[in-house]
């Protein structure tokens, strides 16, 4: 769960928090594309350090570290899968080569870069801002609303799940008892009230929204309108440069692997 903790927005303000979410999202997408373009270790190591200044400027180091720690489990799995399967497929029964190790590490680092950049985005963008950004990118309002509502209800549901767990434990349910199948079955008394509650809540929400004339006017206006500031233009410019640079390097510059670099 801790990986998701790292995606939860906390209401603080900083230069990074105040950036336009559309530009921030574009920047994250550039990082994403760049990470996908390169499969060698050196550029990915470089890429890993790119979002770090943003983390520090936004002052979300602790949350960021938590999300990285959460991602570590999946990172280990990705590494093992890459290493073990590629080894048995290509090199068995020889001794695994250094390049195989490097390739597996690169794949793992690619995953970490993706988690890192998206975590920075979600940690510094409020759900309201995100909804606003979607709306002003001409996504239909119904979708924007559904999206922001879903995001907003995540902590509510988490709290409810805890209460339900307490209520069932108070009736003698032991979640950690029995073999694997039994343990999975132990969660039925938690899941059913949670799902029923969520459905009931969504119906109530729909009624409450409609009684407040939701969707009555075709053309909706917003109290807050997103407007690009100088810092936003700067980040957009940097992102475009990064993208051009990355594509150029990918097309024309042969990238040495770390093993060859070390050998030089």
């Amino acid at each position, binding site marked *: 769960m801790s990986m998701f903790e790292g995606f939860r927005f906390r209401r603080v303000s900083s230069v990074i928090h105040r950036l336009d979410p559309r530009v921030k999202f574009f920047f994250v997408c550039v990082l994403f594309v760049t990470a996908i373009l390169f499969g060698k270790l050196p550029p990915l190591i470089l890429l890993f350090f790119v979002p770090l200044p943003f983390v520090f400027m936004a002052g979300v180091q602790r949350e960021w570290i938590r999300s990285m720690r959460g991602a570590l489990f999946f990172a280990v799995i990705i590494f093992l899968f890459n290493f073990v399967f590629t080894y048995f497929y290509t090199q068995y029964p020889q001794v695994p080569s250094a390049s195989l190790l490097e390739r597996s590490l690169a794949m793992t680092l690619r995953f970490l870069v993706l988690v890192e950049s998206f975590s920075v985005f979600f940690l510094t963008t409020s759900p309201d801002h995100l909804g606003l950004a979607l709306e002003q990118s001409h996504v239909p309002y119904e979708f924007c609303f559904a999206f922001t509502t879903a995001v907003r209800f995540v902590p509510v549901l988490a709290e*409810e799940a805890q*209460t*339900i767990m*307490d*209520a*069932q*434990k*108070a*009736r*003698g*349910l*032991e979640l950690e008892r029995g073999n694997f199948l039994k343990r999975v079955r132990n969660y*039925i*008394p938690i899941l*059913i*009230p949670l799902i*029923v*509650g969520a459905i*009931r809540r969504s119906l109530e929400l729909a009624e409450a929204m409609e009684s407040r004339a939701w969707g009555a006017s075709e053309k909706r206006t917003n109290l807050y309108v997103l407007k690009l500031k100088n810092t936003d233009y700067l980040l957009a410019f940097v992102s475009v440069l990064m993208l051009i640079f990355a594509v150029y390097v990918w097309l024309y510059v042969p990238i040495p692997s770390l093993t060859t670099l070390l050998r030089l």
Partner: protein
Amino acid sequence: MIEVKDLYFVYPTGVEALKGITLTIDDGEFLAIMGQNGAGKTTLVKHFNGLLKSTKGEVVVDGVSTREVSVAQLARKVGFVFQNPDHQLFCETVEEEVAFALRNFGFEENAIKKRVDWALNLLDVTQYRQTSPFMLSGGERKRVALASVLAWDPQVVILDEPTIGQDHQQKEKLRQFIVQLNAQKKTVIIVTHDVEFVAECNPRVVLMTEGKIVAEGLAEEILTNQKLVAQASIVPPQITQIFLGLPDLGLPTNVIDVHEARRILLDILEGAPHEHV
């Protein structure tokens, strides 16, 4: 017997919910824990069946520290009925719902059947035996939740906000029911801010504000103390408010019972000197 010794509790979010609670609850006692929202009432009672473990200090139930036993073991002795029945109902029929805890505690099938019959009858929900709990009304769901806890006959029964969403008739039934439980030497603990309900039941009251106990005593002492109730953001029962608002008549200020108030007023109307008991 439940002993709470200098209990502190801090939630993982850093909120200090309990700050040095010391309290003894005797066997067979009827206790109401009152106070405003966020005073720490529910946090306190969640320590009684081990759902929460203290940050500092300890809670001892029947001579055993709640740290040393599992929730399931404690739940056998301490039944906890949650505020919202929707947080626990999940079975296909009411009958199954009531049997759920009994199965968890490892009762024999024969005993389960008997106890389910008994609990359904006790809470007047036998006619819904084969109905889905989700099809019942709010009050009925609450009764099913209560039946599902009482079925294993715990020594201590904790009711979290039992009167919320209940009509007057149901509240009266609940009151009679609690009195009945108490008469069977069960310890009954209610968490509530329903002042009128407490005034009618007249239990021992523990008043909490901001994670601390500010007063304990009989309901008629606590609920009629204007300073105390204001501190805990509650108001005295309506009948007390009337008596407090008529200082010229020389009425007693510690009346919470409607029948007693009626007698005093009748005495005054008839010109007879009254004696407050």
